[in-house]
């Protein structure tokens, strides 16, 4: 209470950080769970603390982190996408068919990014302007995009420049670095008026509109950014695997939803934080490695995975109610 009454200038710099601190409250429980898994993993696999061990681990997390963000942005606006996986595939095949060709790495990257932005924006326009339910628009979109990926590369193939693969997915934690940059860019976006409007546009669109927020623009921009993150994840997957596969992204669709919801992102728009979504994706990724080192059989893996997902969502609920 007290810091509110200090003179505005003395504490003006702290407003941003005070808000950030408030936002952590909702995800504290999840952070604890993730930390526990992290510790368990480090305990089971000491190599995690070597440069290359850490690098490999973050590489397997990286694409899931990006798609979790891609899904979370949409869910914050009250949308959702079932085309995440198809977009990852499209990004991967585009990268693997252009980067060793005349377009080169720069041209290929530009193409991948433009396609992601373009498809995302187009989806956004359809959902927002035509008032169609996002879930089915993106379901239909997923077939169209998957078809396009098959046209680009009918079967697995293509190639990535080896130096790029080694740079992004070699023995250095470059992927982690890129992730940090992506997160910073997101923070930056969220600090713009349009970015911050995401929450209002998602939670209370009528109120936001009446307050002068460009609601439609904010939502369409979210779709565009989401598309970019997906094809970007595709590019990374192509680098990580050294090639393109037109169906490589399939399972990212459901996983991105699981990660986002696990991270506390709500479906009604405006609820949750990106840090939560990232923690959710990290948990999903960690879970796979931890279960491996615990020697779980496939049956046990399925059961444990289900329990962990439910537990991570239910336990914080119970703790909240207990209070």
């Amino acid at each position, binding site marked *: 209470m007290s810091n509110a009454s200090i003179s505005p200038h003395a504490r*003006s710099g702290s407003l941003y950080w005070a808000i950030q*601190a408030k936002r952590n409250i909702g995800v504290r429980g999840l952070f604890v769970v993730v930390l526990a898994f992290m510790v368990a993993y480090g305990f089971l696999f000491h190599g995690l603390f070597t440069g290359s061990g850490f690098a490999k681990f973050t590489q397997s997390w990286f694409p899931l982190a990006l798609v979790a963000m891609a899904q979370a942005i949409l869910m914050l606006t009250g949308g959702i996408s079932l085309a995440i996986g198809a977009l990852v595939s499209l990004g991967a095949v585009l990268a693997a068919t252009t980067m060793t060709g005349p377009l080169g790495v720069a041209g290929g990257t530009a193409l991948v990014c433009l396609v992601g932005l373009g498809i995302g924006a187009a989806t956004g326009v359809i959902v927002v302007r035509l008032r169609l339910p996002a879930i089915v628009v993106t379901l239909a979109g997923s077939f169209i995009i998957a078809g396009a990926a098959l046209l680009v590369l009918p079967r697995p193939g293509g190639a990535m420049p080896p130096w790029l693969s080694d740079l992004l997915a070699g023995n250095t934690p470059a992927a982690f670095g890129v992730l940090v940059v992506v997160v910073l860019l997101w923070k930056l976006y969220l600090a713009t*008026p349009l970015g911050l409007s995401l929450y209002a546009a998602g939670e*209370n669109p009528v*109120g*936001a509109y*009446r*307050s*002068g*927020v460009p609601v439609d623009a904010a939502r369409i921009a979210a779709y565009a950014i989401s598309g970019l993150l997906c094809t970007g994840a595709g590019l990374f997957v192509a680098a990580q695997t050294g090639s393109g596969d037109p169906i490589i992204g399939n399972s990212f669709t459901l996983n991105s939803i699981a990660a986002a919801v696990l991270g506390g992102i709500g479906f009604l728009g405006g609820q949750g934080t990106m840090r939560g979504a990232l923690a959710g994706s990290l948990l999903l990724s960690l879970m796979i490695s931890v279960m491996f080192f615990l020697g779980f059989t496939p049956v046990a893996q399925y059961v444990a995975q289900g329990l962990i997902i439910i537990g991570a969502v239910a336990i914080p609920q119970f703790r909240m109610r207990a209070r």
Partner: protein
Amino acid sequence: MASSVPILAARGVSKAFFGNPVLRSVSISLEPGRIHALLGENGAGKSTLINLLSGALRPDSGTIEIDGKAVSRHSPPEARRAGIAVVQQELSLTNSLSIAENIGLGAYPRRFGLVDYPALAAGAKAACDLVGLNEPLATPVGELSLGRRQMVEIAKALYRKPRVLILDEPTSSLSATETRILTTLLEKLRSEGIAILYISHRLDEVMQLCQHVTVLKDGTCTADRPLEGVNAAGLVRLMVGRDPGDLFPRWDSMRTERVAVSVNRFAAGLMRDVDLEVRAGEVVGIGGLVGQGQEDLLLGLYGAIPAKAASAVINDASGLPANVPQANTRGLAYVPADRKREGLHLIHPIVTNLMLPAFARMPALKLRSRARERETAMGLALQFAIKGDLGRAAQALSGGNQQKVALAKWMPLDPAVLLLNDPTRGVDVETKREIYAMLRAFAAAGKAVVLLSSDTPELVHLCDRVAVVREGRVVTLLERGELSEEAIVAAAMGAEPERAAA
């Protein structure tokens, strides 16, 4: 008539929704340094008119003028640029954003394309200071009580340094103190030359504050004149078209010996150590500053949030209800304050809304009879004077009518105890009169009524006793003889030595 050029005006605007005319050729001019009242019954078209003025809606015909010039494409950002700020009746806030971020929403200060948080903090702080909001600016709005949110909404309008300030029922969820702060503030703004449009169903406020009045009845303008020389009764006559009676019914206590609700050391949510007894035939008021835990008291009794009590008797059965269906079975009914989220299903037809408590209690797979439902609903609509096509979605009803639906839907259950959470918020004077009469009639019929209200006169004039709550405890229990606005406010603010609770 004041001689200055109106800053904002509507000239002969009309608006219809799906072919239903809501406004017919209405004109209004807002002039600097004047507080202009806009009055009318629920559904008269007040909110619609301000939506036209603020660019949230476009008129079907007629023009909006700013500084004497007609604007062609009016929109909310356009209105903001012209210095028009609106305190919406429906809160335009985002729960997950902080107070400061809500205040600046749609008008953020920028630096290098980013939201300038230091500047936002300074601006928001200044606006908050004006309305007496002292919560940390980083607090998510979702954590605030409805009344505090309303203050944020007002601060949000002030933050924009408006030339025209439009307030749509700003006091409907404010406590007396908050209302007083607002009134002082508006006086000050007026003296600074701001044009103010003020909508309220509280006529005393209007009389005290405003200089000019426009009255809408069924979408047409029935009066546009200075307030001077009109009294409250006159205003009501203008709105309703006939002579008003007294707002509050005359009544004699019908309190019986039968205990309807009795709890000892009751605790729920913010509330602690409550000893309360409600007898059949009485109206017990719950007063206090908004957000002291009063709502938790009702919700706890109703089984909607976890509650404990050393001992509890409700309608002759002991123990607190464990959940809402149980509470209903034991004769409790609850009417929430937030009718949009808690009271009604806005996207559903009025008739379904009216029938829901019945549906909740009927055998799950019994066949419904549409004819009977319609009949019941028509009866309720008649009884509560609910205007509107019962087959249409409840969101098409004006706020006051929505409130009546939220109350009426419990009648088929014939509850023995009514728990009411601010039932007249945003309700027009005629409807209020009807609701008041109904409450006393309930009591007279041997039912018990618990009335939580932010409207102090209501507590004074309707209740057999009033429990005043502060910081989660019942601090005072005032008997009818001791009831006065001063007594309630004093107890609410802790200004008086506590009296022994009954």
